[in-house]
């Protein structure tokens, strides 16, 4: 097997990138082998999947930063549960651009670090920060023979609306220079207030601007989903409610990247 790579991104914060990539990893791992990679120095995906919030100390020098700098992810991958592994991140990831420059690494550095594990997983799910940076560009520049895809997160706001073309430009740049088979899997709505009157206009605008890219599934944010960061997945009595919108999304994602 060769891993399919799915990168969640948008150049705006608070669009549910970490939550969506975490839940997607969890759901996919029920049937297949998944490696989740945290490329955001805030480490929210790391905390979300491990339940650990003291990430600077607990994952000191055991993160994706070291994996990239040393050109091999294997020593830094941790097991979350059966079929689900994580390459964690912490705040020190902020030093990545400088360290890459010092070592003369290019934007294919993540590709090189992942090469030894590409055959070990069915899926590699990557969370990115809301910025144009190495942490965002490298995942998109990482090629897989099984396919690599971007999921564009959208929270229904004007800020995010204007961030979409910018993110798509990053995708185009990565495709042109490093990853010719990179595709956009789709635009995923994750609405903060599902009753907001502008949602309908936004949906129409996205459908007009980016035909066929919008996922049919719309994530409507719920308190139970937010509480996953507190309660975790195992033994969580409200898990079914928390994952309600993500189950159809993952099904749709699998169909789109088949």
């Amino acid at each position, binding site marked *: 097997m060769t891993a399919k790579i799915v990168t969640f991104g948008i150049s705006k914060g608070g669009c549910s990138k970490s939550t969506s990539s975490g839940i997607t990893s969890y759901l996919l791992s029920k049937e297949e082998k998944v490696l989740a990679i945290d490329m955001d120095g805030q480490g929210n995906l790391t905390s979300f999947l491990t339940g650990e919030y003291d990430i600077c100390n607990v994952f000191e020098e055991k993160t994706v930063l070291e994996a990239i700098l040393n050109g091999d992810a294997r020593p830094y991958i941790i097991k979350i549960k059966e079929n689900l592994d994580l390459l964690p991140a912490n705040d020190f990831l902020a030093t990545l651009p400088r360290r890459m420059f010092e070592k003369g690494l290019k934007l294919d550095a993540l590709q090189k670090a992942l090469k030894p594990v590409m055959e070990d997983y069915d899926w590699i799910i990557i969370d990115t920060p809301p910025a144009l940076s190495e942490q965002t*560009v490298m995942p998109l520049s990482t090629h897989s023979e099984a396919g690599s895809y971007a999921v564009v997160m959208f929270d229904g706001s004007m800020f995010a609306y204007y961030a979409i073309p910018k993110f798509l430009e990053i995708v185009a740049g990565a495709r042109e220079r490093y990853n010719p088979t990179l595709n956009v899997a789709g635009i995923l709505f994750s609405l903060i207030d599902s009753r907001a009157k502008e949602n309908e206009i936004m949906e129409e605008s996205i459908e007009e601007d980016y035909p066929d890219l919008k996922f049919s599934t719309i994530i409507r944010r719920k308190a139970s989903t937010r509480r996953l960061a507190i309660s975790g997945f195992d033994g969580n009595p409200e898990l079914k409610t928390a994952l309600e919108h993500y189950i159809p999304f993952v099904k749709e994602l699998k169909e789109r990247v088949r």
Partner: protein
Amino acid sequence: MSDKNKIKERLKKPSATQAFFNSYDQDIVNNNETNKDEVEDNNENVNETENIVDVEVNHNNDNNQDDVTYVIDDNVVNVGDDDDYLRSLAVGKKATRKKNKKVFTSFYMEPDLAREVDKIASRGAKGDKSKLINTAIRKLLEEYGVIERNN
């Protein structure tokens, strides 16, 4: 500039994403130049002085210029600085040279200019393209009175 040209200029301006990717292309070139700098910095001062003289002579011969500013890798030295530098060496004082900071930038060139610059640079060594561009812009800005003329 006409409105049409202004719009064209605006369209040609690279986006942040393009600038980001371009910076990696430039980094590769710069790394090569930096490695060369490091090697040369490890040479003895005597050798370094000889190199400076060689470059100055070549520069003046090739271009028949009175301009005495010349560039050796990332060190920009004018004659005044060079005099002080050599004087310090001669009297046995610790010699220091002023280093100008380099910055990365990217811009669009007109195709005919780009071709000529590449042609000239291909005959020289690494870093010569930057030298040529810097020399040209420096001369223009001196002529405009934007920056002071080097003696």
